[in-house]
Structures are given as C-alpha cells and as structure tokens.
C-alpha cells in the first residue's frame, strides 16, 4: 500500500517533469518555425522545419487515410518478419556454436568475416539475388538483427558459470537436460538483451531499406514508413516527413516495450534485486 503510494508520487513527479520538458521543446519549435512568417527573420535550423501545429494538422488529415496505415502495417510486418527469422535462426545457431566445439571452429570464422559488413551494404546484392523487392528488404532486415542476436547468445552461453554445469552433472542430469534446464535458462538474459538491441537495429535497417529500394514496388502508397518519408520528401510535403519520423519513433517504442515486457516475463528472477 505504502509502496504503491510512494511509487505514484515519484511517478507523478517524473511525469510532471517530462510533460514540462516536452512542452518547452514544442514551444521553442513552434516559435522557431513560425518566426519568419511573424517577424521576417528566419531562425537557422529550426526555421526550415514545419511547425508542430502544422505537423499535427497534416497528421490529422492522414489519420483517416488507409494508405498511411498501410505504411505502418508494411513496416511492422517487415520488422517482425525479419526479427523473428533472426531469432529462429540466430538463437539455435549461437547456442550450437557455444556447446559444440567443432561447429564453432567451422562456422565462427565465416560469421566473423561477414558480421562487420553493415546490413545496408547488402541492399544492392540483395536486390539482385532475391526475386522480389519484398524479399530483399526482409533479408536485409533479418541480417540487422541476426548478428546481434547470435553474438549475444554465444557470449551468454559461453560465460555460464562452470559450477552450474558441474552441479547439474553430479545431480545426474543428462546432456539434454543440462542443455534444456541449465544452458538455456542461463542464456535467457543474454537472449533478451540481444533481442532488444536487435529490434532497434531492425527498425533502423527497415526504414533505410524501404527508402533505397523504392518501397516494395506496389506503386506510390503502401511502401512502408521509410518509403512514406521518402515519398513525402519527393512530393515536397515537409509536414509529412516529420509525421513519418514521429510515426517511426512511436512504432520503435512500442516494439521495445513489447520486448521488455516479454523479457521480464521470461526472466522473473532478475527482477528481484
């Protein structure tokens, strides 16, 4: 009871500060952007950006526009597709490298040579060897998360306290039990961290890939949020550029929040300290 009260108090205070900071930020932005039309002097930097009120107005016009929501959906599908593919392939790959010496020695050098290549450098090659633009974007997105997840899983699984393994062994656990009941849970925290970082990278990559590849070939609309921004730029709608940017911020935030909750649910013992 007391704790929740205390929490509320701290929360409200932090919340209050957050609201003030954002308000001040918006006011400066608004005034800076409108300064030229009011006083005839263009403020450097801010003067070139559309004012927040204009942005919100333009956003209001888009809320009812299905093609705007199409962009959200397409980007989300690509992010989730690439991300889950990276999890499904990356986690077993990393774990297997950690537990099997031969496999590690075989796979790790190639992996390490490919890893420093930024995912975006793969875009042209990817467009050449995947039949559709959609697949090439998905592939590049996948790469963004894959390396991070593998490296985290490998590192986490390799740094397991040896005594956990010895304890399990002397209590009669089989190799499979040790893997399932010791290696896997001991690596979970690293998997969670790797996924969170991987998710961030996925959003960065998908937006850039959408801009470069022209948005999946389905004409002007429906090419994802990255293409939405690019299209707004080409079409000269500066308000919509900012709308697109903020949309990506919100989408990224929701993705991370989802992962944080999932991670907390999977690793309850870490919350207790």
């Amino acid at each position, binding site marked *: 009871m007391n704790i929740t009260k205390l929490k509320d108090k701290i929360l409200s205070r932090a919340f209050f500060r957050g609201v003030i900071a954002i308000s001040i930020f918006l006011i400066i932005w608004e005034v800076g952007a409108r300064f030229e039309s009011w006083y005839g002097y263009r403020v450097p930097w801010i003067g070139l950006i559309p004012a927040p009120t204009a942005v919100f107005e333009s956003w209001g016009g888009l809320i009812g526009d299905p093609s705007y929501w199409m962009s959200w959906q397409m980007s989300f599908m690509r992010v989730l597709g690439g991300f889950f593919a990276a999890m499904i392939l990356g986690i077993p790959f990393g774990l297997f490298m950690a537990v099997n010496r031969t496999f590690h020695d075989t796979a790790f050098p190639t992996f390490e040579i490919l890893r420093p290549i930024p995912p975006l450098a793969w875009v042209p090659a990817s467009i050449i060897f995947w039949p559709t633009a959609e697949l090439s974007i998905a592939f590049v997105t996948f790469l963004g998360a894959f390396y991070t997840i593998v490296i985290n899983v490998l590192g986490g699984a390799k740094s397991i*306290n040896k*005594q*956990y393994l*010895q*304890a*399990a*062994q*002397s*209590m*009669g*656990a*089989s190799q499979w*039990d040790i893997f399932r*009941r*010791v290696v896997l*849970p*001991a690596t*979970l925290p690293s998997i969670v961290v790797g996924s969170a970082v991987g998710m961030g990278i996925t959003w960065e990559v998908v937006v850039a890939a959408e801009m470069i590849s022209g948005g999946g070939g389905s004409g002007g609309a429906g090419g994802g949020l990255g293409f939405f921004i690019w299209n707004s730029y080409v079409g000269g709608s500066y308000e919509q550029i900012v709308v697109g940017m903020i949309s990506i911020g919100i989408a990224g935030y929701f993705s991370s929040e989802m992962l944080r909750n999932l991670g907390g649910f999977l*690793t*309850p*013992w870490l919350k*207790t*300290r």
Partner: protein
Amino acid sequence: MSATMNADTNSQKSVIKGAIRIEDVVKVYDPDGAAVMAVDHCSIDIPGGEICMIVGPSGCGKTTLLNAIAGFHGITSGEIYLDNELLCGPGKMQAEPGSDRIVVFQNGALFPWKSNLENVVFGPMMEGKLSKEVIYDKAIKMMADAGLGGTEHSFPGEVSSGLRRRVEIVRALMLEPKVLLFDEPYRALDSLTKSVMHEALLDIYYKNKVTIFFITHDLEEAIFLGHRLIIMSSRPCKPKKIVEVDIPHPRDYSVLTSPRFRELMEEAKGVVNEEAKKAFEAGEKEG
C-alpha cells in the same frame, strides 16, 4: 562418558557407507606444457560417516583433489575408491560424476532461475525414480527441518547468503549421497552467520550420517566440525599432519572455550603456519 561415545561412533562408522580411500594420487595439470604438479602421491583414508576437514595453504591443490573425487577431472596416477569400488584409477582416470558424491561449491551453485524449492527437487526429478508428489513432499519437509520454511517459492537471489547455503546443502542431501564434498562453503559468510551454519550443518549431519569431505581455511571451523583434521603441505599437496579431534559429538558452541579445543588449535596452528610460510616462499621464488 567420552569413551562410550567414541565406541559408539566407531561402531556406527563401520555400518555407514561412503568410505573414501585415496591411494597414491598424483595430479599434474598440463603435463606436456607447464606441468603444474597439484597433488603429489597423496593417500588419505576416510571411514564412512566421518567429517574429514582438509586445511592447507592457498593454491596447494585441495580443490584439485575434491574435483577428482567428484569426477570433474581426471587424475594422472593413483586410485580413488568409494566403499571399495574403484572411482578412478588405472584404465579409467576420470571418475563418473554421480549423485552418490555431491559438491557444495565455494561460491554456491544454486540455479538462480529456479525457486529454492525447484532447486531442491532438481536432483531427484532428474533421476526420475520417485513420483513428483513424493519428491515435492520430501523437499518441503527437508526444507522445513533445515529452517527454510517460507523460502520455498523465493528465488535464491531473494534470500540471504546464509539461507542460500542451507538450501544448497538440502539440495545435496535430497539425493541421499554417501559423500558430501564441501569446498569452503562458508568462506563468504560473516562470523555470526557462519556459526549458525555450523550448528545447522551438524544438526543436519546428526540426522543424515554421511561422509563429509570439507575444505576450509578456518582452523576454528575445522576443529569445531571435524572428527579429523588433515593438514596439507604446500603445493604439491599431500597430508602433512593428521589431527584427531577427540572431542565427542554431538558438539555445540560451548566446545570452543574448552581447554582441549585450545590445545588442538595450538597444535594445528603451528603446522599450518609453517606450511603457509613455505607456500609463500615458494610463491616468491616462482613469481
């Protein structure tokens, strides 16, 4: 009084299983390279049900010997027997790790992702000999006996380090091992918690007579708990002196102030200091 006590424990010893015989064991790390000799022709005979305390300078090879008994690594030559059955020796230099010899580790090795209760049932569940209900009932009862009631559903990270150690000992006892191998289990505890743990351990021991192979640096702990104290030489380790602790069990903390306890302390201290000095000088030469 004490004579009958001793006779009593002796007759018990012959029935209790878990006798460990270490014969002429040598362990050399990295025989082709640096060739660090950690254990040198070491022979120790521990009757079943004895609390055998091992003390010796840091780095002398105590953990090495314990790991060889547990089966975590092999030996270079010699033999180790458990109840006259070969654990490791010629033809099979590494013992099979097994639930008849459970280690309680220097830094603790409870699984942090499992609740205390799930940790305690881990061994029997892996063995799969008993039904789940029987195992959980037994675990809850043993935890209650060890003063762990109420901590069953906490994670190890949520309870004090003293309680964690107790959970770990209960986890080890669940498998009804013949031998408990302790590697400085109380090193990180404050002295008050430590004394509580000592009495708790003896309490548990009186209820479940097992052989205890107990490594420590704390002489007072060694004499308070042990039937015997084996003082190891500096590396490579082999028994340098054996002190029989002829204070009858069951013991409690009043023992610490008895004159016999002080005498034994003095006797052991002399030897330990001499070996520690040797180890230090050897270290200086090598370093």
